[in-house]
């Protein structure tokens, strides 16, 4: 094998990337959201393929899924899963509320650092 030369593989098109929001972070979050919507669709389509392949083998998942009624245990399990999902996704609000309740401020943290030498 010949010695490989280091080639810069561009990820970015030459030319200034415009930012549209006052805070460029909003552009970043929007870009991340857009990527995730793509990912979400790729996954949805993949699931559709699984259903189609199953149908070819005589397992009609698509219809069965539509007619499926969870038994009480599973329904309860799903409710628990939904609650947990919401709790994970929105954890930052709980953190903020606890900060406010405890009175933690940037100044109190700075104080913790500055007095760590004396304790």
């Amino acid at each position, binding site marked *: 094998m010949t010695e490989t030369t280091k080639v810069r593989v561009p990820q970015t098109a030459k030319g200034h990337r415009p930012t549209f929001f006052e805070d460029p972070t909003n552009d970043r979050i929007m870009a991340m959201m857009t990527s995730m919507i793509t990912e979400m669709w790729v996954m949805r389509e993949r699931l559709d393929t699984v259903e189609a392949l199953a149908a070819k083998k005589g397992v009609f998942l698509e219809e069965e899924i539509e007619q499926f009624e969870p038994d009480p245990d599973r329904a309860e399990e799903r409710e628990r899963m939904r609650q947990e999902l919401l709790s*994970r996704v929105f*954890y*930052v609000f709980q953190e903020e509320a606890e900060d406010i309740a405890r009175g933690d401020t940037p100044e109190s*943290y700075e104080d913790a650092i500055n007095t760590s030498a004396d304790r």
Partner: protein
Amino acid sequence: MATSLPPTYDRTGQHPLSPDVDHDETARFNFLTNLNVHLNQNVFPGNRIAFENRVSPKFEKETGHALETRQQVRQAMLGDSYYQSWAALRRNAMEQRQQAGRHAVLRQLDDLIEKAKHYNDGKETLQIDPNAEVPRYLAAVDNHCMPGSYYTDVVSDDVLAGANYETGVFITTAGSMSSKGDGGGRSIVNFVKDRFPDFSPKRILDLGAGIGVNTLPIAEAFPDAEVVAVDAGAPMLRWGHARAQALGYENVKFIHADGDALDLDPNSFDWVQTTMFWHETSTASIHSMMKKVFDLMAPGGLFLNVEQPNFTPETPLYDQFTRDWDAWYNNEPFWSKLHVMDVFEVMAKAGFDSGKMFDGGTEADIEQGQFQPWSSTISRHKAELKDDGDSKHNAYKGERWYLFGGWK
């Protein structure tokens, strides 16, 4: 360049006490591990570029002089939008890791407590002191952003802090502490066996041992020694003791105490070990604890500590700023102060003879096939060594453990 891949969580070492981690919890750990690796390998390097190409020139233009202190660097970087994004992403990744580990443990907490009790009840090798005081350096903020820190009991006989700590080490370090998380302890043993081949301690004390993850390799290397692990966190010790018993380590005693208030025989330990512990204390307590350590050591005994090396006048400002990050944003406030302390002066004040002090580095000891060390952590750095001899353990190049210590 392809990013190296960490192992999946199912590759970690399990023991009879290990929490049941279901499919989606495993997947969440796998994702968060990758996120840590990605942020460190691919996003973090951009901070230096933003610093050199944008932040530093802007500061010079505005003030007419160069950045002079790491505090100035921190303030200047806080205004840079790239750095803001990295920092917020890293903080989020750490919070999600706590959430994921705690949830997995909390949903089966009753079972885990029962399992731990099976190994703990009636054993003299576990001493929990219900009246032990939480040292102020632990009480001020929850270290490592662990809600409740090392010491909070959520319920009686609680093991949450210990079980969550063990489960999450894999995510935070991307498996670079080995599959059992004990790479630090095994590296310490390698260092001691190589550098002091005739050393054969009969009593060993590990101070600030947590769940004893780094204590057990020491107990294994010296099976005839009596090993004592001390920590200020009761839920860490309940978990650690049960874990040690389940893994068959019967020569390790776990004692609940603040280092300052340790009630053990003076002149009785041939080896006192502290591992990644100093940075979670305070100036006043490290001085008094080291006096205590010196007092507990037998004449001719060894003291050894593993810690990040401190700054030297040669450490670039940007690196100082980076290594202070966890002090400011990962709830390890004292680290910022420790980075500029003279640790050998602390030892000298405690009674150590400066002619009997040393430092060195040792390779991280992890099994083949696991992830390489350090790739998920931001603490890569170089250090000036006190002793610059020929031993392979002296060459400290940043991607190793740094150790310092002394003989009594």
